[in-house]
């Protein structure tokens, strides 16, 4: 496999705003090279040997530091890790040389069936140990530290004994992984399940968070649905400000997956995160 001629190879992801790379923006991103700090791609979309998507990522990769964000490993599945899928992640890492690699605190398959969704875990000691063991196994195999993201949730298990933030902190401490704090997911889960978002942020250890996600959500009756289909709402921006105050200026991604707007709209949304990050750096200086 030819080595990529890139400017951004293995440069650390800067503490700036980045955008999620989506197929509809491939051409525009390459043609316009907008001033975003980095890009994040869904690992599974770039598993293949050839095709338009991998060619686009190779070209975009030459201009931006890259984060690969997996949605399919289901590292909390009691049935174990799908080794074939993990091998494909490893090949994608070798090919695209990301500076960050992340996945989710969730499960996704049982009894041989894959649900292709980020399913919630019960917050128990057993689940901490299983997720931490499988995250550590994946990190060893991939040769890189992972960031693990909190997911949006619509239900909570009756067996949960820990707060979500205690669960995530324990997984990070046990496995050595970092955390990816998705502020929109936190907002959605806190609304749906009565989680105290401020306690959550204050309960995550400083230094464990390596990246932040921002996105929009939808409302369906009393339930918030994490659809990544609109602008980031004001409440999420406020929580983001609180998170940046606690964790410092961190690489921050703006995601948009449904009703995807023009690239310029996404870039404009990322500028707002950059302004908040700039203020945080100013305060720290």
């Amino acid at each position: 496999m030819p080595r990529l001629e890139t400017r951004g190879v293995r440069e650390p992801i800067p503490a700036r705003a980045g955008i999620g790379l989506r197929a509809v923006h491939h051409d525009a991103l390459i043609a316009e090279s907008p001033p975003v700090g980095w890009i994040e791609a869904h690992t599974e979309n770039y598993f293949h040997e050839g095709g338009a998507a991998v060619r686009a990522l190779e070209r975009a990769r030459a201009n931006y530091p890259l984060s690969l964000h997996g949605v399919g490993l289901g590292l909390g599945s009691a049935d174990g890790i799908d080794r074939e899928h993990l091998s494909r992640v490893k090949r994608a890492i070798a090919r695209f040389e990301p500076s960050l690699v992340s996945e989710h605190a969730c499960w996704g398959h049982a009894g041989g069936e894959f649900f292709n969704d980020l399913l919630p875990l019960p917050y128990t000691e057993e689940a901490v140990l299983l997720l931490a063991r499988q995250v550590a196994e994946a990190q060893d195999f991939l040769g890189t530290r992972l960031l693990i993201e909190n997911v949006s949730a619509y239900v909570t298990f009756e067996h949960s004994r820990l707060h979500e933030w205690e669960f995530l902190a324990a997984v990070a401490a046990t496995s050595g992984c970092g955390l990816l704090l998705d502020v929109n997911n936190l907002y959605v889960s806190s609304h749906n399940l009565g989680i105290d978002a401020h306690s959550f942020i204050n309960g995550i250890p400083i230094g464990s968070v390596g990246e932040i996600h921002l996105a929009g959500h939808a409302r369906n009756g009393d339930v918030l649905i994490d659809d990544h289909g609109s602008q980031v709402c004001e409440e999420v921006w406020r929580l983001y400000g609180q998170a940046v105050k606690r964790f410092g200026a961190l690489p921050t991604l703006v995601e948009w997956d449904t009703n995807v707007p023009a690239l310029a709209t996404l870039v404009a949304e990322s500028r707002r995160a950059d302004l908040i990050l700039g203020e945080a750096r100013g305060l720290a200086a």
Partner: protein
Amino acid sequence: MASLREMQNAFAAALRDPSAPCPVRPAGNLSIYRNNTQHSFRTALEGSFPVVRKRVGDDYFRQLCAHYRARYPSRSGDLHWTGRDFPAFLLEHLHGGEYAWLADLARLEWSREQASITRIESALPAEVLAKFTPDQLEHLVFSLQPSLALLASDFPIFTVWLANQLIDAPPVGQSIGAESGMVRLRIDGLEVRKLAPGPFSYLSALRAGAPLGEAISSAGLDQDGLVSALGFVFAEGLVCALKDGRSEKREI
């Protein structure tokens, strides 16, 4: 207390069957996960089989998705593979009926899907043939582009697929009969092309690793047919490597 595995199995059962018990609150919100998983599965299938969907309509396609998912649930965390067994499912599901041709149409669309993620090798020009002696030519074995798929059907699936690239495509009469053709990835996109029986046989034989002489005779090509068939594979950039089939050593 239930084990993690038991809880996940109960959750999985509740995703398949709304009446199955699951230890979560509020239980009514399980429908969100049920809808999400159905939606991801169906969206992946719609992306892979746009012409099948167009021909049967949204409502029937949804029904097919549900039956297919019950019979062939997703076996991968990568949604790309969702449609892998859809042609086989349609063959079982529609066998012998008036819509049996949809299984072959699905086979064509899945070939497109697979071709779309295949690497493109650099192609050899026809001039390389000059490097071989006339005696060697009939023994030449061709490596063709990895994305090339050759399909034959008792139904006019190529005519149907090509006609349905128009927005308001009229139905294609099945009386056209059997067709064969090829699917491949070019640098500017996917190509779907109908092939006459002679060139199809010749390409299929080359694809199967038969030497050129054998491919020509199995396809029943005469001298003119040979020249045009050879011209076609080179002009289309389908030839990635050549070797004399009598030796293991790759010549070019």
